[in-house]
């Protein structure tokens, strides 16, 4: 392990910057406004002028230029557009694209801000990215070891119950875990149904998104909030919002499914021979124990305070490090104790989680400038956003709409930073979050609900959406195109639901 001392040899300003803890704030803005005219050109050739770098900049959010968010926008637009415009290229080269955007921002940042930038990079990787990937990976591994088998006949009532169970499970095993557990049995149950596309769409709405709104385990943005100090059970405040949204959607689904079921009945094949009927059963149930282990580990890290450890100069709670170790242990135990056949029958593969890991290192690194500028509040280059987004209703819709088209995890962090920057400018992050929860909880509810709920609006809003789509298409269920999904389903259905949520909770 490298110590601060070792790092300060590599980067002489590092130790000094850590010690000062960003208390030394200088006003570079006048000079910077001039540079913003010239530097966009220089940015491509020699980013962040080395002359500027030599001056040092303890609070980088106040001095970062607006164009430093371009790589973040580029990264998110790549995720949004490449799968649509060049899916084959994207499939084989998304890692290079992610690396490109990460390098485009990280190297100039390190040159310009030296130790301060190095600290930010290390901090986001060690305190956010690694725990985030460990949680997603462990939930994915453990839930991938649970197999639901048996003959289920996809009637409207059975399908609605399956969706309701998936919605309830999503907050405890993650939207990805719940979706992976149920999507194949759901598709098998409805294999003889003619109209299946709408079923998978509602599955994405409920199981892959809205269901995950109650705990930090449910959806990645909420876990990022938890890592920054939002208490584990605080997200239960979203229960009324979730119940309203899920309730409306389940009723709509039941009506639609009943309509199609009756319509299809004429051409439906004869029921399967009773002798071939397989009883419903769960295999790999031991994994529920590991799932409890994950929940326990995350809860523990939110309650215990065992002091701090310094990893590469980044201070992390010992309980957080222990939590990450326990999560890895749970995943390892799941791998060892689950029969290979169970995972194979689940078509378990590491590929989706590898993809998420590769893409998210790009997302996390590129979002550093954006987060820092927003945290700088009125002193940052994104002050216009902070002044424009004022009310909870704004946060709900803007966090939501951006979450629909960009991944919802970074969007959540961006607007959490915006709220903190607007309401508690200059306050340390943990303090600002505590104040936000105490004095203005509606803002955090709006950001959380917006990030989680709107993730369902497009295929790219949340990672499990594309996994569910891929599995459904592989199983022969025709899925609507990117725009077809929005025009036929999410806009007419979800936007109506979100308007109702706004009127009830955020007016």
């Amino acid at each position, binding site marked *: 392990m490298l110590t601060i001392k070792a790092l300060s040899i590599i980067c002489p300003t590092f130790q000094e910057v850590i010690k000062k803890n960003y208390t030394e704030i200088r006003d570079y803005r006048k000079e910077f406004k001039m540079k913003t005219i010239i530097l966009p050109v220089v940015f491509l050739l020699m980013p962040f002028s080395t002359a500027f770098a030599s001056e040092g900049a303890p609070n980088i959010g106040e001095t970062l230029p607006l164009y430093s968010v371009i790589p973040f926008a580029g990264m998110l637009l790549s995720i*949004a557009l490449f*799968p649509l415009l060049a899916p084959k290229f994207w499939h084989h080269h998304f890692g290079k694209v992610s690396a490109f955007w990460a390098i485009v921002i990280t190297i100039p940042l390190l040159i310009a801000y030296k130790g301060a930038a190095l600290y930010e990079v290390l901090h986001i990787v060690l305190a956010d990215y690694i725990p985030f990937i460990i949680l997603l990976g462990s939930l994915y591994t453990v839930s991938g070891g649970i197999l639901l088998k048996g003959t289920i006949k996809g009637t409207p009532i059975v399908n609605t119950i399956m969706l309701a169970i998936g919605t309830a499970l999503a907050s405890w095993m993650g939207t990805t875990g719940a979706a992976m557990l149920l999507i194949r049995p759901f598709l098998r149950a409805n294999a003889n149904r003619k109209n299946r596309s709408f079923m998978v769409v509602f599955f994405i709405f409920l199981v892959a998104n809205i269901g995950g709104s109650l705990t930090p385990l449910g959806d990645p943005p909420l876990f990022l909030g938890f890592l920054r100090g939002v208490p584990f059970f605080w997200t239960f405040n979203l229960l009324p919002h979730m119940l309203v949204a899920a309730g409306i959607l389940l009723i709509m689904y039941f009506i639609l499914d009943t309509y199609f079921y009756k319509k299809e009945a004429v051409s439906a094949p004869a029921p399967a021979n009773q002798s071939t009927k397989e009883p419903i059963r769960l295999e790999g149930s031991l994994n529920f124990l590991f799932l409890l282990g994950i929940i326990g580990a995350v809860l523990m890290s939110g309650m215990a305070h065992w002091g701090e450890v310094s990893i590469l100069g980044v201070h992390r709670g010992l309980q957080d490090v222990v939590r990450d170790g326990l999560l890895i242990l749970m995943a390892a135990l799941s791998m060892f104790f689950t029969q290979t056949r169970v995972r194979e029958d689940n078509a378990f593969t590491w590929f989706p989680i590898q993809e998420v890991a590769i893409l998210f290192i790009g997302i996390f690194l590129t979002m550093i400038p954006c987060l820092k500028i927003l945290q700088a509040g009125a002193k940052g280059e994104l002050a216009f956003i902070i002044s424009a987004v004022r009310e909870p209703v704004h946060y709900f819709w803007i966090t939501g709409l951006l979450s629909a088209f960009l991944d919802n995890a970074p969007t959540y962090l961006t607007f959490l930073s915006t709220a903190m920057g607007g309401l508690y400018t200059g306050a340390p992050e943990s303090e600002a979050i505590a104040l936000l929860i105490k004095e203005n909880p509606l803002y955090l509810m709006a950001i959380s609900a917006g990030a989680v709920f709107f993730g369902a609006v497009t295929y790219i809003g949340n990672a499990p959406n594309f996994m569910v789509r891929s599995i459904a298409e592989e199983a022969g269920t025709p899925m609507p195109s990117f725009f077809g999904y929005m025009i036929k389903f999410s806009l007419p259905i979800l936007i109506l639901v979100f308007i109702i949520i706004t009127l009830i909770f955020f007016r």
Partner: protein
Amino acid sequence: MKIERLLFPTKFGEVDLNSLESLSVLKDAGLKEVILFYVIPREEVGFVPYGGYLKQEEERIREEVRIRFEDWQKSLSAKGINSRIIIEVGEPVPNILKIAEKEKVNLIVVGKKKKVAHDGPFVGSNTLQIITRSKIPTLVSKYLVQFEHEGESVTRTNDAIFKRPLLATDWSEPSERALELLISLNGLIEKAFVCHVIGVKISKSIDKTELHRIEKESKERLEKYCERLKFAGIAAEPHLGAGRTIMEIIRISRDVKASMIIMGTTGKDRLHDFFLGSVSHRAAGMSELPTLLVP
């Protein structure tokens, strides 16, 4: 035990067709059908990050594979062997094992069918998984191999694999089944060899008298195996070895100029397999000869 239907999974390696053609002699031993199998790796077409599934890409690959297989089918048809094509999306190992059970094949043919590095094992990770888990006899085909022998680099083509098979037995039930399978190939065999190795563990832990007793008993058992082969019309020769089991089997196979090694394979527990691997699996990895493993 007779080979009537075999599964030939392929990734269209450079000598895969040669390898397949070398198996056509099995027709004289009762082979009726070859199932040509291709697995489109799920990662190739599915889970496009934030995109979904490349349906058109899957269809393109399917068409390409179909065209190639149809060309192979002509070659099999000319030899009077029926064949079928199966193309699936998934993971190679589980899909191969599943389709083998579903189609009730008698033999799975796997393995690197092209030149391999002379310092590396003769089986890849997928092949190793298949031979470890298969409940069906599995032939690790090594059509063209390169290896070190007495300080020299040797390139060998294994194209007449059933002519001089070496049965390595540990007297287990799977070894018995391996013998039965060998007998079913009688029309193809020029001469068979049967060997048993008194392992280092045994020779180290017992006294000389006991060792002589085991030696005598082993020779008698080897003779019985050979008699059964001779009764089926196959010329057979016994060989008793002593020392490190795998190295002895390989030494004997080279001494008698064997064309293939046949072994019974027992399913060990996961820990044992993970840390050690069974003798048969390690033999398949270390010998330059095609290895037929019978569970």
